[in-house]
């Protein structure tokens, strides 16, 4: 019959010398008192450090750059919510934020996560300069893999048009999508035409729309119909139609 030492082989409490029991009670009381005398911990906001260089990150990733990139973006994403304190995105140093996002993209160029964070999180702060910085970051990174990153630049184009009220910037982004992202959705590739139309550049819009229909790039019958109607409206009016005014 096995015995379970330590579980059943125990002597009674009377076997413990009173001095040991008193010492245990006293030291426990002392510990409680000591803790009670200590000030409560206070939360301190830590500034975002500069991003490590990519070579170091690759070495530290032990051959798993994708995992390292994921940890990097999650660290950055969680940085605004440090233990016991919440830092508004607006208070972050955006040069450093850009550095972290760029490092994550260098480790995993096919990931859209850093660009999503740039356009949807850090680009939403009420600071025009920071919004522009994030859009420029997305624009610069778009060229690494245009067919994979176009949707984030499209978001920035819409942001530039409606929030920044910078039609020229929106047109630049939309043009780059049309020219470089051949696999982008039709709406993103056609965005350039509608921006031109809204800018009053109806002639350019008409030429582009006509070209788009003539190449046969659009195959969906409903979309062809819609665009044909738009082209006809442009040719008839020669300027922006009511539909365009109510589109966005």
């Amino acid at each position, binding site marked *: 019959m096995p015995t379970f030492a330590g579980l059943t082989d125990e*002597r009674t409490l009377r076997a413990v010398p009173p001095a*040991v029991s008193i010492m245990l009670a006293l030291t*426990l009381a002392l510990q409680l008192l000591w803790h009670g005398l200590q000030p409560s911990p206070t939360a301190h906001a830590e500034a975002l450090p500069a991003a490590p260089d990519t070579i170091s990150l690759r070495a530290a990733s032990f051959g798993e750059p994708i995992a390292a990139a994921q940890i990097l973006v999650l660290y950055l994403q969680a940085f605004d919510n440090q233990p*016991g304190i919440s830092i508004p995105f607006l208070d972050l140093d955006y040069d450093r934020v850009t550095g972290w996002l760029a490092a994550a993209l260098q480790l995993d160029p096919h990931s859209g996560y850093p660009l999503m964070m740039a356009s949807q999180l850090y680009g939403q702060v009420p600071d025009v300069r920071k919004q522009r910085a994030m859009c420029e970051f997305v624009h610069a990174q778009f060229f690494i893999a245009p067919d994979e990153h176009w949707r984030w630049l499209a978001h920035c184009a819409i942001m530039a048009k409606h929030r920044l009220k910078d039609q020229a910037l929106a047109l630049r982004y939309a043009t780059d999508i049309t020219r470089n992202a051949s696999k982008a959705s039709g709406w993103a590739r056609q965005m350039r035409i509608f921006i031109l139309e809204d800018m009053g550049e109806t002639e350019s819009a008409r030429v582009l729309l006509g070209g788009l229909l003539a190449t046969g790039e659009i195959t969906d019958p409903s979309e062809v119909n819609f665009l044909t109607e738009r082209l006809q409206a442009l040719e008839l009016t020669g300027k922006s139609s009511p539909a365009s005014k109510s589109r966005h």
Partner: protein
Amino acid sequence: MHITTIGKYTAIEAVRTRVPVMALLVLAALLGASFFIRELAVTETIRFQTGFYATAARLCAVFLVSLYVLASITREFNDKGLDVLLALDVPRAHYICGKLAGFMLTALVVAVIVSLPLWALAPTAAAWMWTASLFVELALVVALSLFCIVTFNQLLPAAGFVAAFYLLARSLTAMRLMSAHPVAGEDTLSHQVTGLFVESLAYVMPALDRWTETAWLVNAAPEAGVLLVIAVQGAIYLALLTAATLFDFHRRSL
């Protein structure tokens, strides 16, 4: 007299089982790795090297000392050496205190050995305070390991408890802060119960995250008062763990 003798032979056992040699090997391996890290960094190279070495050395020292205490006492239990010793005229308290003294001496040697490179990498005052704090931390880990192995008798549960306790003690302050300032659901019952539990834990556990900080080495050495607080908390907790070990050991039927 018994305490001194038991302590002396415990320290000799540590030397014969090559604990100081292991500490030197840890030093060599981590120092080599830290030079590699230093070569990778393009700026703040010394800061990178010091930060890596200090963090890794602290963890390795805790692991080494804790495992040594657990293995040593387990061997003593299995070899029936303890039964023979207690059959002699040796009070149980003397055995525990002697063992603790020997293990603490071992912890001091390990703390000094693994700290050696930091005397060259960091300012002297910072290195001194870091070494002293590491010794107090290792002494506490020694007492905790002794308590666990006496209480649980088996290596696996004892090692698991020590690891869990150490990790919790290192993260308890962050848990308290998160619990005190939640992002959402502050008024829910579950949050209030969790908050109470975390605060209660803080009463009976030392906040090890404020001990042996790498920031002392790479930023600025703390004021002497910080070390005093660590020493007082260490002494209180060491006495508490010793009392708990004695309590359990006196109840043990050999």
